[in-house]
């Protein structure tokens, strides 16, 4: 080979093609069916993987360089946060409940997403798609770890964090998020991508992350703000991937449309139910509030989501089926959730409390049509009971929805005075649901959802056998420490005392 004149410079797009999809080849010793066994069974038809548009052209050297810089900053900040007792800068110890729920329910989901993206990063037949998914698999590992590391210092001082690895698998409310991620991973590769890449990352992430990180900033939690900001540029890539994958499926074959639509309907509703946890945090758990759940929904749900579905109408996609029911639930869900958490506070690894008069005034201002009418009277009743020395506790067990796993505490979309309850019989067994959305998801794939592990029935089985104390031991919930009312908790005592030491001369 002679030394040639220098080649003309390759364009970025061509160079990226050479550095990714040109690495793959058409196998001849083994069939594509053997190498990619799971591509057919969901019914999605892909004719040309090369039509996949790489949403971000990131080579590994650039990835290491950029991510390395972000990592350096992140750990510098959380090290300083730990050294300087940054936990004493939060507005109030009540704020910690939001962090506890996050570590117990959401961080394990990051790990599940890591694992799921590794699987689809191998199972898809297009190199461009695979590389994008593999990088997301790597990013999701980052998110799981940065969250654990950021919250690790809180664990040293406060209750409720110490057993997150056990509560993830055993406590009742974490199974809402766990079943969501398990469901996505139990699905085929294309559905997984719609579930996590599109519904969760694209449609719902803003509703999770923006209020959460703003809430952290408002409440003086530098550690959480930092992992949020540090993850943001990763999320931007993930959202682009989610949108690209949905367009790719829709452009490949018209037969894909009804399948994709069904998944959008399903995963919107699944995600919306999980986000109920966020609504409670925003309306009740932030001592200094950013905005109400209703306001967040207006911006990130109605405006952003509305614009997105307007764009997707070009492909024949309509807004998710549960969209209207979701809209009707917005003014109720955080109150219904918090009342649930409060009455079952013996069984939560975080604290809850009766909102103060000031809090209730804020809620009635933010929810003028519902709070005073439906929820203030209940809090007033609970408050009276408390004052009379007969604190309101519900030691009965909630009926859980077979699909989303939340207690059936929601009301009918059009009548907030009637509890919403649906049921269906499958092979002689009765299954219960919190909503039409959840019932439809079950009825589409009953063989999947009959398998669901339900934490409440577990209470009556070995090794717990209906004994509440035994259940707490089994769930790694330390009675009197992790659970119950915030007022009088060790978190409250310690936070107030330490903060007093830090901010006054006592």
């Amino acid at each position: 080979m002679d030394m040639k004149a220098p080649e003309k410079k390759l364009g970025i797009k061509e160079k990226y093609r050479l550095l990714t999809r040109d690495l793959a080849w058409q196998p001849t010793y083994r069939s594509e069916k053997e190498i990619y066994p799971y591509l057919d069974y969901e019914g999605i038809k892909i004719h040309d993987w090369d039509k996949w548009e790489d949403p971000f052209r990131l080579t590994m050297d650039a990835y290491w360089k950029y991510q390395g810089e972000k990592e350096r900053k992140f750990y510098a900040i959380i090290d300083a946060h730990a050294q300087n007792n940054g936990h004493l800068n939060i507005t109030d110890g009540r704020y910690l409940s939001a962090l506890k729920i996050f570590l117990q329910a959401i961080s394990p989901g990051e790990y599940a997403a890591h694992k799921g993206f590794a699987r689809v990063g191998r199972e898809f037949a297009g190199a461009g798609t695979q590389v994008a998914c593999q990088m997301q698999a790597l990013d999701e590992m980052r998110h799981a770890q940065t969250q654990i590391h950021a919250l690790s210092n809180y664990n040293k001082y406060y209750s409720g964090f110490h057993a997150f690895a056990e509560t993830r698998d055993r406590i009742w409310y974490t199974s809402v998020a766990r079943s969501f991620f398990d469901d996505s991973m139990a699905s085929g590769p294309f559905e997984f991508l719609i579930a996590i890449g599109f519904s969760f990352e694209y449609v719902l992430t803003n509703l999770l992350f923006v209020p959460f990180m703003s809430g952290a900033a408002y409440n003086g939690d530098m550690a959480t703000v930092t992992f949020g900001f540090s993850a943001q540029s990763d999320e931007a890539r993930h959202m682009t991937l989610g949108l690209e994958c949905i367009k790719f499926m829709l452009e490949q074959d018209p037969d894909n449309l009804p399948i994709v639509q069904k998944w959008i309907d399903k995963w919107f509703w699944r995600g919306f139910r999980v986000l109920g946890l966020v609504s409670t945090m925003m309306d009740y758990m932030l001592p200094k509030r950013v905005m109400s759940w209703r306001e967040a929904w207006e911006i990130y749900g109605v405006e952003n989501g509305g614009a997105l579905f307007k764009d997707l109408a070009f492909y024949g996609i309509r807004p998710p089926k549960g969209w209207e029911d979701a809209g009707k639930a917005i003014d109720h869900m955080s109150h219904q959730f918090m009342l649930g958490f409060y009455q079952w506070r013996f069984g939560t690894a975080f604290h809850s409390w009766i909102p103060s008069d000031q809090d209730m005034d804020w809620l009635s201002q933010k929810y003028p049509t519902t709070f005073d009418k439906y929820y203030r009277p209940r809090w007033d009743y609970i408050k009276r009971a408390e004052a009379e020395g007969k604190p309101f506790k519900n030691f009965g067990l909630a009926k859980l929805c077979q699909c989303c796993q939340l207690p059936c505490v929601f009301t009918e979309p059009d009548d907030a005075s009637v509890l919403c309850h649906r049921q269906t019989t499958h092979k002689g067994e009765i299954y219960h649901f919190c909503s039409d959305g959840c019932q439809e998801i079950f009825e589409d794939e009953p063989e999947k959802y009959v398998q669901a592990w339900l934490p409440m029935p577990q209470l009556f089985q070995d090794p717990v056998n209906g004994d509440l104390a035994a259940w707490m031991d089994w769930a790694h919930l330390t009675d009197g420490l992790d659970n119950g009312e915030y007022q009088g908790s060790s978190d409250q005592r310690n936070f107030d005392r330490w903060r007093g030491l830090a901010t006054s001369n006592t």
Partner: protein
Amino acid sequence: MQIDLRTVTIEPQRVAFDHLIRRFGNKPASRYQEGTYDIQAAENLHYRPTWAPDQELYDKGITRIVMRDWYDLKDPRQFFYNTYTLTRARQQDAVEANYKFIEGKGLAGMIAPDLREKALSVLVPLRHVAWGANQNHTFVCGYGYGAAFTQPSIYQALDNLGIAQYLSRIGLMLGGLDTLTQGKEAWIGDPAWQDLRRYVEDCLVTRDPFELFIAQNVALDGLLYPLVYGDMVDGAWASEGGSTIALATQFMSDWFDETRKWVDAVVKTAAAESAANKDVLTGWIASWGERAARALLPVARLGLGDQAEAVMDERRADLAARLAKTGIKL
């Protein structure tokens, strides 16, 4: 840790998360430990995969290796995302500096044409081998059990994407666009590469994650990296005036030296777990190793000519000696 604040002490209530205290005692945990141990859901998995209803979502049973505790397979490098990324970020700085040096000084043009052609005929098709490795490690990460074992596999997967990209850039730098095209044609059709391509495609249909780990990391890469980056690049080619190639492939030799420590630790721990494990591992290493050696021989001939047979024998002996230290006797 105790922090004194205005002469008054704020006392930590505990030193670490419960699951880490159970494993390592009542002492502060490292970030590797926090980011690795028990972070995979272990109980009460909700649904079986619709894509393989005979499996669990996280299934210990899809490999023949049996571990009482999969978290025993720890990474001696203690890589978690941060330490992994920072290590590679530093290395890529060095690679960039090397490439700038090569291009700035016009070093590519100083390699004798015969040698350049020979080197590219070996290195460029290897970008496809690295892509195969990327696929296999991604599989091990996705389907292996427990983050101690699977976390390094996603790093290994993306390292191999990086290696494939570096090899492509070397092809472009020392040859040009045509070099990549020719390299791919050789990979697809040249008899010298067909046994190796068959090996890689057979790996792509192997769905026992631990077997795949062995086939890729031990049997194939355990021979390939010392052969290509040792005997060829640092040995024969350097003595023929091709030390520029060594400069361009520094990442690969450093990477192999680093990652083999992890690979050896995994093999050693799994083999020490039980006689049954040791038998399975020995069987896999023997059968995949035999095939890998056969597949690499024609590649060795491309790069080393007549010395190929002798060098391959040495590499196999070296690998056997390396494995003996992990408890595997071939």
